């Protein structure tokens, strides 16, 4: 529970800070924001005794079992070290920001984001599940993006933020892939399981891939060469952000990951060479470039890169002592780099610039800050009695006992000494150049004015810590470091004594050499600057922007090729994919013709089918003349009806016939509003493309149908045929399937029908067609609205048709017919009345509006189904019985009939709703009120 609080309290604090923010009162916001970290600090410290006793505190809740993701927290020595660093530095930065943001806007936003960031960092270090950790890992990338782009009105800030997000986000993706591979190899994402499976992983087939992916994640986050480029550009963030995220904490997340997974992934040659070479490259590049940066924060950013490289190199050497020294230096780096960044921020505020060619001689204006900076810079350079000296000396010692052999064995310490020399040079520069080196040159703010004295408190505390740790390390950091190293390495630690580090030995000599060399280099800086200026300049950000632009343009073009908003193209693409899929599936087929005997041909069927094909082709060829095409479509539908009738499907024939009538009426209605001809506008290539797509589709359809139809049938229909009479109580098997066996499907289908009808109703509701569609009055349309003969014939026909449909409905269970067909016949009969009389007249004759009819039909069908539940049988079980009624003889009554009645009502209601609403558009002024 404590662990959960540690991560969630800063989030709650962020909410609280945001909610209680008062304009212009930064002090209040700062106090509110500091509440959560103070409590968290206390909570973390309260766990210290247990950690000291060697315990590992864990807590776990279930989240997504299917992928092995749990809400798991785990606190051990390593997590403790990082948690203290995160919360402690966070508090100091918040104090610093209270003065930094005084009189500026955005202070509150900074606090909110910082608290969110703190929560995500704490989440990373205390996660007990690797997948869970990824969530926080991504959170830090996102918050970092927001904080770097803090001044979103400035272009460099936006670009820097984007560069960072792409690099760290990309690394995050790689890490995620790596973690998933680890999870698959180990069989669990749980940290304790993973840590116990070191041997499995190292011998795993995919170890090189896993290692590269994890390293990619860690290296991008920790700004290792060649991914270090984002860090200098992240300096567009406000200085408190640079202190906290880009020097003390976030960039250490990668290091944390390396340390955390050290027992699992390290101690292989691959780890040794890849990690240490990256570390060495980063160390040297960072140190070299830092010397030549004229921007204070730029210099510090590159020196951060260099120090991160140093720590990575130490971890990369894979020795147990290397890891201890790495962690020690990580702590020291936070202690001396933070005050330097803070100084850079203070000087920028007082002078208005960060350019060291203009900032000189600040000692005269702010001597106290000069002293503090001197201490921190000396520590960075590695002067004795300061913490930086200790870890750097241990680093030199480590390079001499590195596991390298041959040339590398002496090259490593030599390069390390060079890097040490460079670090002395840039440390000297940041101190001497800012505080001495002559007089200031045209500063934007003159005279420099120091912000509130309070801003110096965190700087003082941190610089003092450098001295304390430097003089008595064994009392202050030894315990913590030991705990962390034990947790990271497991097992016994090598013997070392932080208190004895000031002794004179070879590493001490190396430190001394680096010191003199570095100072000499600084003295000769003018000549070096001149040489450096002649080197070709590589602007990472420009290259990155160019790359992004190219990628963007490429993606845009690609998207346009695939998705340009043209329905025609989409359909063509869909068809093409379908053809390719089908083609691949059929590629292996050799024999089209199956073994079945073909049904014999007869002249009438041949004649009808040929006419069907002729009609279809006629539609395609003559589609520009729309009226003709519509008539031919209707004719094709009639031949389809005949095909059904010929091949033993009377129900289908009846349905198709009535549907065809309705469909043609509707299309006819629509055509009277649309242009009567289609303009020829397809280009020749387009027509060739369409013809080949259509041809291939038709060919495929024909071949597949032929291949299937000539093969023996294996159908489940025997089941239905055998049980239709005894269990369904009807001899028309198609109808029994519809209303009984597959009644649930039918219920769904009438619902779809109802929805379509209501959608038509909704779409035509506010549609005014008459004078808005550009059209010439077609010569096809009769001017007389309701011909006399039709009107006279229609009325006597109605009762007859209704009777026929009642007959069809009632016999449906045993003979061809049923609810669908009867419904359609009724609808056709009623729509004839609409055509014969006026819309208003016909509508006034209807006893009920249509929408309730649609709903009522579906409801009736559903209730019939529910009725069987009441009788203790499954949904939609039907019941039937035979009765002798006086005068009617033997009558069968079945609940299926009730269900079919529901189908009937829905079909009538839906069809008429569609038809009446489309017909409404015909009337000159519209009927004025809703129909149906």
């Amino acid at each position: 529970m404590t662990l959960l609080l540690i991560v969630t309290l800063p989030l709650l604090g962020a909410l609280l800070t945001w909610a209680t923010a008062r304009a212009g009162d930064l002090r209040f916001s700062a106090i509110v924001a500091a509440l959560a970290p103070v409590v968290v600090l206390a909570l973390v410290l309260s766990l210290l005794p247990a950690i000291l006793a060697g315990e590992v505190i864990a807590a776990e809740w279930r989240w997504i079992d299917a992928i092995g993701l749990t809400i798991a927290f785990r606190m051990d020595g390593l997590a403790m070290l990082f948690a203290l660093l995160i919360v402690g530095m966070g508090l100091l930065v918040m104090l610093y920001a209270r003065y930094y943001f005084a009189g500026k806007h955005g202070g509150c936003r900074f606090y909110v984001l910082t608290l969110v960031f703190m929560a995500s960092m704490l989440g990373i270090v205390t996660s007990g599940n690797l997948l869970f950790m990824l969530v926080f890992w991504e959170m830090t990338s996102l918050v970092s993006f927001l904080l770097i782009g803090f001044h979103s009105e400035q272009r460099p800030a936006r670009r820097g933020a984007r560069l960072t997000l792409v690099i760290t986000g990309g690394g995050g993706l790689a890490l995620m892939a790596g973690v998933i591979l680890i999870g698959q190899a180990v069989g669990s994402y749980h940290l304790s399981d993973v840590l116990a499976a070191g041997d499995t992983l190292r011998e795993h087939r995919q170890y090189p891939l896993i290692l590269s992916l994890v390293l990619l994640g860690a290296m991008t986050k920790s700004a290792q060469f060649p991914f270090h480029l984002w860090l200098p550009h992240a300096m567009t963030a406000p200085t408190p952000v640079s202190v906290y995220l880009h020097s003390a904490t976030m960039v250490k997340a990668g290091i944390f990951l390396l340390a955390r997974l050290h027992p699992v992934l390290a101690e292989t040659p691959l780890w040794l060479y890849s990690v240490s070479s990256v570390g060495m490259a980063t160390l040297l590049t960072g140190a070299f470039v830092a010397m030549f940066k004229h921007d204070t924060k730029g210099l510090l950013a590159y020196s951060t890169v260099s120090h991160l490289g140093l720590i990575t190199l130490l971890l990369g050497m894979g020795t147990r002592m290397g890891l201890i020294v790495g962690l020690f230096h990580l702590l020291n780096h936070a202690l001396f780099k933070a005050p330097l960044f803070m100084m850079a921020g203070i000087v920028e505020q007082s002078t208005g610039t960060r350019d060291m060619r203009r900032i000189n001689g600040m000692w005269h204006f702010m001597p106290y800050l000069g002293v503090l900076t001197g201490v921190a810079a000396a520590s960075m350079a590695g002067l004795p009695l300061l913490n930086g000296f200790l870890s750097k000396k241990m680093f030199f010692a480590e390079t001499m006992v590195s596991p390298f052999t041959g040339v590398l064995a002496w090259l490593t310490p030599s390069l390390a000494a060079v890097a040490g020399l460079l670090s002395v040079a840039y440390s000297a520069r940041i101190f001497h150049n800012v505080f001495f080196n002559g007089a200031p040159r045209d500063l934007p703010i003159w005279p420099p004015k120091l912000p509130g004295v309070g801003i110096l408190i965190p700087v003082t505390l941190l610089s003092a810590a450098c001295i304390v740790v430097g003089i008595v390390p064994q009392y202050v950091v030894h315990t913590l470091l030991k705990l962390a190293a034990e947790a990271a390495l497991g097992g016994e630690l090598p013997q070392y004594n932080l208190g004895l580090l000031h002794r004179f030995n070879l590493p001490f000599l190396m430190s001394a050499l680096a010191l003199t060399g570095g100072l000499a280099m600084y003295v000769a800086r003018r000549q070096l600057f001149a040489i450096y200026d002649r080197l070709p300049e590589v602007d990472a950000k420009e290259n990155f922007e160019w790359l992004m632009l190219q990628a963007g343009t490429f993606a845009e073009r690609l998207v346009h090729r695939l998705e340009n908003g043209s329905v025609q193209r989409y359909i063509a693409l869909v068809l093409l994919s379908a053809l390719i899929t089908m083609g691949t599936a059929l590629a292996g087929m050799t024999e089209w013709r199956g073994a079945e005997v073909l049904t014999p041909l007869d002249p009438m069927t041949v004649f009808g089918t040929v006419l069907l094909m002729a009609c279809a082709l006629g539609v395609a060829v003559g589609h520009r003349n729309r009226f003709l095409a519509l008539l031919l479509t209707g004719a094709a539908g009639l031949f389809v009806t005949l095909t059904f009738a010929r091949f033993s499907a009377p129900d289908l024939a009846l349905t198709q016939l009535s549907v065809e009538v309705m469909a043609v009426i509707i299309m006819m209605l629509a055509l009277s509003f649309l242009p009567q001809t289609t303009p020829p506008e397809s280009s020749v290539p387009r027509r060739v493309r369409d013809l080949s797509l259509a041809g291939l589709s038709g060919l495929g359809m024909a071949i597949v149908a032929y291949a299937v139809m000539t093969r023996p049938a294996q159908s489940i229909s025997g089941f239905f045929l055998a049980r239709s009479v005894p269990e369904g109580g009807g001899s028309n098997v198609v109808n029994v399937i519809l209303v009984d066996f597959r009644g649930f499907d039918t219920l769904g289908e009438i619902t779809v029908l109802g929805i379509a009808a209501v959608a038509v109703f909704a779409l035509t509701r506010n549609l005014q067609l008459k004078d808005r569609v550009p059209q010439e009055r077609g010569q096809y349309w009769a001017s007389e609205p309701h011909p006399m003969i039709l009107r006279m014939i229609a009325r006597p026909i109605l009762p007859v048709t209704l009777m026929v449909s009642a007959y069809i409905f009632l016999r449906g269970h045993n003979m061809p017919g049923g609810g669908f067909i009867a419904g359609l016949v009724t609808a056709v009969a009623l729509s004839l009345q609409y055509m014969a009389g006026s819309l208003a007249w016909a509508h006034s004759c209807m006893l009920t509006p249509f929408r309730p009819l649609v709903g009522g039909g579906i409801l009736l069908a559903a209730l019939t189904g529910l009725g069987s539940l009441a009788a203790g049988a499954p949904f939609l079980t039907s019941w039937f019985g035979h009765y002798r009624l006086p005068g009617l003889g033997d009558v069968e009554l079945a609940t299926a009939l009730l269900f079919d009645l529901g189908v009937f009502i829905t079909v009538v209601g839906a069809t008429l709703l569609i038809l009446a609403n489309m017909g409404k558009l015909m009337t000159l002024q519209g009927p004025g009120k809703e129909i149906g």
Partner: protein
Amino acid sequence: MEVLFAAALGVLTFCGVYLILRARTFPVVLGLTLLSHAVNLFLFGMGRLTLEAPPVIGESSHQADPLPQALVLTAIVIGFAMTAFVVVLALRAAVELRSDHVDGVDPDEDWRP
């Protein structure tokens, strides 16, 4: 007979697909109708072609496969509802976009140099 049936299917599909790929709404609606005929016949054909044997118990000695028929029956009705819906969509689009082009506007407008 199977050859003829398959050929009719192929022709219906060919015409339906060709019309679906046209640029104006009305031919597309016609194409959809033809294509749904083709699909219905295809499904129906999966039950094999049977002569003189409606799936009604007691009418003849053997029965045609009733299952594809039941499937196709509902497919016909729903196909009708869909046709009506598409027709109304086409009308609405013609009114609101003042054009019966399927895309409403020229899709390549922004990309012409």
